[in-house]
């Protein structure tokens, strides 16, 4: 058991020493200043929350009357979008958006993941210095330039090869795939890089080839990050407007072929807004709020999946 440790020899008690010994307390001024600063920063952080709220408020309010008039279910599941005649069903638009997104994903995700694997596992540092900036640059190209490119180069080629005008799902798939590629690739590369090096070494030490390591060990280990990347890509694909409107052809039907023009949730707004009025205009705001909700659902699902994944590991 420990006694109260003291210096063994008795010593003179400290004589009142020429030291100002009281500890200063926090002055009111300092306390309020620090608290005020903290709250100012909190306020700035809450601008994001305010933004979301404002979007809901203003876009939602402008779009609400159409839901009240037509009914949310009717709006979402109605198969006819002829607003000038009073038909406000956006189901075909939803289907078209999903089709566009799906095809872009099928084309773009493997390419993106392959590029990410290349950057993370295969490329030599010199090559990496070349390819990674290329991916970042691809991310920075404005969507209207992608659409322009699709319009002037891709469309004629597809028209030549497959007949028709060259507008349609197929063209949209290609353009969207290239657009979501950098998003998915960057996140996938991050996910791969955060897999600890030791796992790779362990795999190689067991005699696995590089591909076996990638396929059986690394990609599964980075699964959650890759899924996040893909969902983000999906969100981007479904929300893209400008590039799609320039190559989709914009006809108001569910296309009966992949080379036929079609309309999506995003392009309908661009096409109709210039001349829409009254209920039609309200309906377009309704479409916008639906789009917003869809994108928030994507964000929420990423969170849920990430949390689920963390609990699993």
């Amino acid at each position: 058991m420990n006694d109260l440790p003291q210096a063994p020899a008795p010593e003179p008690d400290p004589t009142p020493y020429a030291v100002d010994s009281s500890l200063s307390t926090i002055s009111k001024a300092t306390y309020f200043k620090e608290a005020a600063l903290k709250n100012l920063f909190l306020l700035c952080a809450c601008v994001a929350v305010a933004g979301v709220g404002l979007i809901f408020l203003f876009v939602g309010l402008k779009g609400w009357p159409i839901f009240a008039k037509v009914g949310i279910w009717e709006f979402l599941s109605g198969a006819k979008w002829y607003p000038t005649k009073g038909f406000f069903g956006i189901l075909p638009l939803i289907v078209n958006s999903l089709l566009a997104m799906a095809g872009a994903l099928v084309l773009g995700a493997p390419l993106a993941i392959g590029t990410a694997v290349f950057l993370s596992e295969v490329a030599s540092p010199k090559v990496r210095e070349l390819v990674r900036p290329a991916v970042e640059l691809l991310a920075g190209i404005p969507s209207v330039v992608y659409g322009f490119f699709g319009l002037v180069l891709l469309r004629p080629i597809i028209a030549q090869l497959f007949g028709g005008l060259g507008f349609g799902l197929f063209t949209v798939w290609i353009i969207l795939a290239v657009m979501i590629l950098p998003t998915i690739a960057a996140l996938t590369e991050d996910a791969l890089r955060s897999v600890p090096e030791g796992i790779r070494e362990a795999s190689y030490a067991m005699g696995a080839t590089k591909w076996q390591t990638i396929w059986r060990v690394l990609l599964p280990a980075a699964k959650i990050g890759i899924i996040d990347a893909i969902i983000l890509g999906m969100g981007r694909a479904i929300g893209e407007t400008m590039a799609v409107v320039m190559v989709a052809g914009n006809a108001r039907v569910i296309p009966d072929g992949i080379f036929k023009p079609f309309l999506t949730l995003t392009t309908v707004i661009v096409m109709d807004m210039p001349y829409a009025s009254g209920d039609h205009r309200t309906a377009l705001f309704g479409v916008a709020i639906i789009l917003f909700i869809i994108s928030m659902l994507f964000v929420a699902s990423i969170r849920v999946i990430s949390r689920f994944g963390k609990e699993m590991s």
Partner: protein
Amino acid sequence: MQSRERMNKRVTNGIALGVIGLAAIATVGALGTILLYVIINGIGQLTPAFIFTWPHGVNMEGGIWPTIQSTLYVTALAMLITTPIAVLAAVYLAEYAVQGRLVSIIRFAADSLASVPSIVMGLFGLALFVEGIGMGFSVIAAALALSFLLLPIIVRTTEESIRAVPKYIRWGSYGLGASKWQTVSRIVLPSALPRITTGVILAAGRAAGETAVVIYTMGTMINAPVSPLDPGRTMPVHLMLMAQEGINMPAAYGTALLLVLMVLGFNLTARYIGRRNRRMQG
């Protein structure tokens, strides 16, 4: 292991890695194709006349100066509005925030804002700034709408930059009797500044290329805005309209090239700052 299995392993490996390499080639190839096509077709347009004069006539002959001015104006204004707020918000998240419901909500809101389709943001700007507050089609309405779009991007990059400053540097400051704000303002933020700047410049590149937001908040009128309440037409909007009308394709190519050069300029500047910073930190 049988030598045949060993052979198979190696063959599969070779093929797989080859396919992966092809993916990377396709990616770089896509970039190269787009850039080359735009450059080849647009380079002929890049005369001083094109850059500095106004378009005239039905066919928009002439130059695109007002669109350049519109683009630069709205980008600068948007960055001015959003950067201080975003940086301070990031300071809160990185330095003051405690894990809790409020922080979760803030992060969810920031992520949602980051993934808003730009056309929704455009309609939002139309509803609130142009019509609701009554600013009309104007640079300021577009800048405000753009700021909401850029906010989460800058918050994210700034927060990462702040977190990258090592803990023991901060402790050195606290150990000298510095308050939290003194430490953040005199040590942490200056250390993180180069990376923050990189993030801001990249965000500016994004703002310059935005179309859907700007078209509903700034309009499509050919104009060189002077006051923030003036309308205007930015380069991306101009490009889209020219491409859709199809009358003056050379001008469209020229606009596309200028736009790409502008965005590339932002990108390369950001990269240069990042590299120089890394070299100085040793």
